[in-house]
């Protein structure tokens, strides 16, 4: 019979001789519409003559603690209007549920801690930011302290971990890096081609693609992809290792987590990113050449000759940036992971923040490099 009761909502109506309120249906969490019931009770009470009013439960009615709470509110409203409700004729099970509520020490929650408001919020953000960069500096220091002795004794570096990380960050990224760089090359060649074509300078499409891809686009695309793919996974891996106390376990076994986890990842990226950048350069130039020859009538041989005559500086200028990008991506990702405190929610936050920060710093550093190289005349 439960299913019928559960599907019939809580109701009440007034009855006289003696004056009473009859409660029907499911006075349960699923069955009560609290505000409507409280209003209906007030209305029903006003129709009854002065004096105490008994509450009566109909045969199929049910009550749980939520329903009992609603009854308490009905009684409180009635009392405010000078009416007295008599609960004594309710069945014993209902009385038990009511007494359960009566014994609760604190009916309403204590006031919630004040959220930061306006001015204080700005201060909090500033303090958090300062704290974040202080932690970041401390982390860089810690990594350096662990890295320097290892550089003197390179055989103590955990090369097997480095190899595993190179595979994850490098080998598995080959298809996506190659494809996206190829497409960027295609797009650049179209844009350059339309303009250069007007001047009959189609041969320079090859020059332009070569310079732009090798100096800027190749390193940037590779770095941004690695930041999104690998930097985020570093943050997530180390973050969940903190949540599951694996980092604490390493510490307790006197295995420094920085040496075990951070340095292999950092070295792997420092080795991988220049290689991926070279791949991105090749794929980008190929994409540009395909468009230049197919869309703008450039001869393959001529195009290759033009590319061959470019200075090697362009390639090296692009490549020299990549270890710096790799360092930034690895350190930001690992630091975000290591800074996770407590819960799974934090892991998600750390992952997002690592990607945003890594891409931000890659672009900022790239701009700084561009200006510096211009000043140096490279």
């Amino acid at each position: 019979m439960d299913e019928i009761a559960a599907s019939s909502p809580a109701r009440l109506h007034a009855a006289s001789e003696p004056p009473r309120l009859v409660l029907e249906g499911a006075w349960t969490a699923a069955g009560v519409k609290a505000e409507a019931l409280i209003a209906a009770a007030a209305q029903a009470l006003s129709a009854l003559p002065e004096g105490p009013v008994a509450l009566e439960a109909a045969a199929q009615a049910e009550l749980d603690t939520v329903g009992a709470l609603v009854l308490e509110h009905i009684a409180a409203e009635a009392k405010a209007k000078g009416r007295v409700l008599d609960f004594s004729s309710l069945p014993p099970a209902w009385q038990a549920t009511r007494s359960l509520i009566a014994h609760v020490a604190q009916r309403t929650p204590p006031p919630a801690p004040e959220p930061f408001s306006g001015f204080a919020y700005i201060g909090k953000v500033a303090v958090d930011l300062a704290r974040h960069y202080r932690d970041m500096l401390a982390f860089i220091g810690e990594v350096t302290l662990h890295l320097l002795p290892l550089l003197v004794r390179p055989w103590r570096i955990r090369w097997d971990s480095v190899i595993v990380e190179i595979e994850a960050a490098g080998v598995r990224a080959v298809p996506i890096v190659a494809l996206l760089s190829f497409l960027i090359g295609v797009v650049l060649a179209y844009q350059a081609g339309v303009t250069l074509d007007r001047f009959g300078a189609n041969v320079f499409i090859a020059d332009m693609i070569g310079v732009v891809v090798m100096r800027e686009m190749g390193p940037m695309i590779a770095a941004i992809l690695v930041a999104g793919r690998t930097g985020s996974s570093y943050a997530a891996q180390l973050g969940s290792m903190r949540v599951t106390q694996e980092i604490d376990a390493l510490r307790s076994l006197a295995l420094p987590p920085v040496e075990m986890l951070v340095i292999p990842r950092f070295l792997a990226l420092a080795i991988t990113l220049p290689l991926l950048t070279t791949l991105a350069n090749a794929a980008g130039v190929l994409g540009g050449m395909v468009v230049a020859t197919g869309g703008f009538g450039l001869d393959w041989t001529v195009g290759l000759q033009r590319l061959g005559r470019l200075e090697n500086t362009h390639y090296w200028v692009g490549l020299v940036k990549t270890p710096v990008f790799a360092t930034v991506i690895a350190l930001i990702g690992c630091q975000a992971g290591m800074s996770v405190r407590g819960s799974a929610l934090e892991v998600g936050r750390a992952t997002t923040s690592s990607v945003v920060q890594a891409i931000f710093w890659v672009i900022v550093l790239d701009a700084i490099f561009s200006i510096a190289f211009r000043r140096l005349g490279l």
Partner: protein
Amino acid sequence: MSEVSEETPAIEVHGLCNRFGAHVVHEGLDLVVPRGKVVSLVGGSGSGKTVLLNNLIMLTRPAAGSIRILGRDVAALGREERIRLQLRLGVMFQQGALFTSLTVLENVMLPLAEHARLPRRLREEAAMLKIQLAGLDADAVHRHPRELSGGMTKRAALARALALDPEILFLDEPTSGLDPVSARAFDRLVLALRDALGVTIFQITHDLDSIFGASDLVVFLARKKVLAAGTAEELAQRPEPELRAYFSARAGGSNCSLNTCL
């Protein structure tokens, strides 16, 4: 609750089978859980306790067999009826499974907000009631789950399971990870909830003190089915080797050296 429903058992399982690929977990499992009792499901690791629990709380479907919860055949339910039945069950997961982005109070209020038509003030009162019934201090309600100790997490999870006044409460290892004092307090709490709310409690446990001290009925899972059911004292006297091994673990635990134990 009406007369008819008192007579139908809380849970009736007949001929239940579960398998993962070639691995058979349950075969022809029968189980009856009477209403208003504390029932403990015990069995060795890998005996399929959690698999059975997931079947009962309708998270997974068994490969074969029938499950009746509160007199209703789970397999025959439509979507609406299924949800309505689920709302009459409360589940406390082993690790608490509190939503980390919400405070304790918000965790307990969530089912009330989604499934009951109550103004905020009443929701808060209902949540406060359940939090205090679960034995959690009112001062802890604005904390986030990560700021809670193990025992508090269990109690907060219990409060959320109780939010909608369930008729059956499922507890997955409620006392694991608690110190003995907290564990016995939790046992007393479970018994008090049975008496106060008339709720049926179905718990997975490895805690022999809970099995002996706070269970009306013990169901022992082995050989892919319910090997034995009865009071803890009855089961401890049974001749089956699995039961003897399980219950002698406590008796013989102290007098073995490293060599004999290995």
